[in-house]
């Protein structure tokens, strides 16, 4: 059975890979592409650990076929830190201890970045609703929500 050839852009870089027709994007990222920052939690779109962006839109990579990335722009957690410098969300998560085991963290970060791009000044309630599709079994969410609000405030200052 012939594999499918996909040409896409991942974190701004042109990338090509081969995949089976029924491989998920998460399979491709974690397999041939070696981008293991996106995690596999539930494989059914409930936990958000595999969150990526597709043309800047937040999606679960477990609910997308790898072949669907053809010609699109994919963004993963690996593209978040720029030039060796952590994104303010990553830095704030570290400083405010918004993670324990880390499995949910890349999904939380990718989802939070998508939120702040759309809404730079979210309320606590808006953060909680936005992150309803990202499950964390360690922290109880409170530190995560506070870290997102703190990073949002920092990012607003940087922009001003």
């Amino acid at each position, binding site marked *: *059975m012939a594999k*499918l050839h996909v040409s896409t852009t991942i974190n701004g870089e042109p990338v090509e890979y081969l995949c*089976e*027709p*029924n491989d*998920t994007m998460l399979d491709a990222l974690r397999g041939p592409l070696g981008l293991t920052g996106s995690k596999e939690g539930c*494989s*059914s*779109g*409930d936990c*958000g650990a595999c*969150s990526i962006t*597709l043309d800047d*839109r*937040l*999606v*679960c990579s*477990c*609910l*997308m*076929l790898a*072949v*669907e990335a*053809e010609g699109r722009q994919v963004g993963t957690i690996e593209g978040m830190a720029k030039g060796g410098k952590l994104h303010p969300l990553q830095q704030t998560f570290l400083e405010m201890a918004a993670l324990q085991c880390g499995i949910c963290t890349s999904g939380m970060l990718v*989802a939070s970045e*998508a*939120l702040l791009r759309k809404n730079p000044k979210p309320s606590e309630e808006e953060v909680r*609703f*936005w992150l*309803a*599709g*990202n499950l964390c079994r360690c922290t109880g969410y409170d530190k995560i929500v506070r870290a997102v609000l703190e990073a949002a405030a920092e990012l607003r200052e940087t922009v001003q």
Partner: protein
Amino acid sequence: MTDVRYLAPTTLDEAIRAYAAAGSAARILAGGTDLLVQMRSGVVQPGLIVDIKKIDEMMAIEETADGGFRIGAAVSGAVLAEHPRFGRVWPGVLEAVNLIGSKQVQGRASAGGNLCNGSPAGDSVPALVAAGANVMIQGPEGCREMPVAKVPAGPGRTNLKPGEILVSFTLPSRPSGSGDAYLRMIPRTEMDIAVVGCGVSLSLEGGVCTAARVGLGAVAPTVLLVEEAAKALIGSKLDDAAVRAAATACSAACRPIDDKRGTIVYRTKVAGVLLTRAVAIAARRAGGN
């Protein structure tokens, strides 16, 4: 190992030819939020996956000349929410579509997929039934239109014939003084499947209800159009007695099951409660037009 093929045609004709030729082994891929879960769990092992997202009419949102809307079947909830006018004309339909899953799921899931998945609890379906939406279906024998309420045939089944593909929804134009609303009961605040869902669309003229439609979800094998409830509202000033009669009609229409989400008694009662609340929201929106 089963041989799976993937096709992403750019025209509807091409999609229908491939889909019809592959028979029952073929599956349509829109947002994939149901299909990929079914493939993963082994419930579905498609021989052919037809990705319809490269077909223009599947992805378009258009305002029609008469003031209605045409929504491509594969338009995601997130894209629909960003349309500048749709949510102002049909706020109830939009809130129903935007209740499907998380933000991640919203980025992909479509009203067309929600309808074709055939779940009695699909959130967008009661709101589209209340809105009086029709679907355009195309197949090897041509094109046909049917009301949304006629599409579901039972849990997981639709009345689409082999080879037919759901192409778009058409929503009628709105007279001024119209409003709609969708409410669902879930034990959580988000990310859950409806125990009961209720969509209401109505028009008011001088305080009198001149038109109404009610859709109920998760209380029968298919989403229901509750004509008796609409009759109780039409001609009234939406006074307590009329709304109570409509709520009673909703409860009477229920043929639910007992399951872990809710009992028959609970669902039947909640259907009436949601109707009462949804009418109040739709009426407020109608007054604001």
